[in-house]
Every structure is written in C-alpha cells, then in structure tokens.
C-alpha cells in the first residue's frame, strides 16, 4: 500500500507539469490563471498523499484545507481585479 501511494505521488508530480505549459504559454492572462488553478488543485492531492506516506494525515489535512481556501480566494480575487480594469 505504501509503494502504491509513492507511485501515485510520483505520477501526480509528473501530471502537475502539464498545466504549467499553459501557465507559461497562455495566449491570455485568463489561461495563465486557469493553469495555476489546475496546478493548485493537484497540489492539494499531493499534500494529502505526503500525509498518508509519512503517517501524519492529521497534520497535513489542515494544510490541504488551507491550500484549497487559498486557491479559491486567489482565483476570485483575480476575477474581481479584472472587473475593475479596462480592456488592455
């Protein structure tokens, strides 16, 4: 079971790199924001997997919850910011 979680963590760490291309190469700034939100979503699962691997889920689960809140507030704050600016 331990080996399975380590393998899944390795796979997720590789999958994490795919939306980074969208952050790097997005035509608009919204593509970059969407890519960063996707990266954050995968980071939540990676943090939980580290908790399971190190047998400290009780600590890492709070970190994951904080990261989820941070991800959401970041996206909403950027959406509100682009409401208040003119088009380019």
């Amino acid at each position, binding site marked *: *079971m331990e080996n*399975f*979680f380590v393998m*899944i963590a390795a*796979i*997720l760490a590789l*999958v*994490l790199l*795919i*939306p980074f*291309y*969208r952050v790097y190469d997005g*035509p*608009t700034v*919204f*593509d970059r*924001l*969407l*890519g960063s*939100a*996707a990266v954050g*979503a*995968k980071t*939540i*699962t990676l943090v*939980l997997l580290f908790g*399971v691997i190190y047998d400290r*889920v*009780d600590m890492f*689960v*709070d970190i*994951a*919850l904080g990261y*989820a*809140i941070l*991800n*959401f507030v970041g*996206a*909403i704050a*950027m*959406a509100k910011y*682009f*409401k208040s600016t003119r*088009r380019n």
Partner: protein
Amino acid sequence: MEAIVNIFTVIFVLLGAMFMLVGSIGVNRFPDFFSRAHASGKVDTLGIMLFIIGLMFYNGINLISLKLGLIAVFVGMTSPVAAHALARRALIHGVKPWKRNEKEG
C-alpha cells in the same frame, strides 16, 4: 476486510488520478479559453473528489475522514465557482469564443 478496503482505495485513487491526468491534457489541448475552463473546472473537481473518497476509505471512520470529506465538499463547491468566475470575467473582458473555421472543415 482489509483487502476489500484496500481494493476500494486503489480503485478510487486510480480513478481520481486518471481524471486529473485527463483534465491536465484537456487544459493543454482544447482550442480556446472557455473549453479549457470546462476541462479544468469539471474534470479536476471530479478527480479530487474521487481521490479524497479513496483516502477516506483508507483512513476508516474517524475525525480525519470527516476533515477529508470537508475538503471534498469545499473543493466541490469552490472549484466550479472559481472556473465560472474566471470564464465570465474573460467573456466580459473581450475574449472571443472559438468557432470552427468553415474553410478548414
């Protein structure tokens, strides 16, 4: 009993990881911003929720599982809201939706 729990854990975690892989590929491959928002908002949410359900099976019934379920509910509520807010703001900001070019078929 433990073997059954482990089987459910493996199934749900693998499903979640697969959905996250599909969502990542979709974020890269779709042609415009709105279809990318669709891929990221739906598929990633489903992936995280399945993944966390798998970890809840692994942990058994205790307070940690309750917190994991809380994260699943929170992500299930906020991730589509964030994707929708970004897509709506992009539409107002002037990003054009993609249309199939008739010359290319």
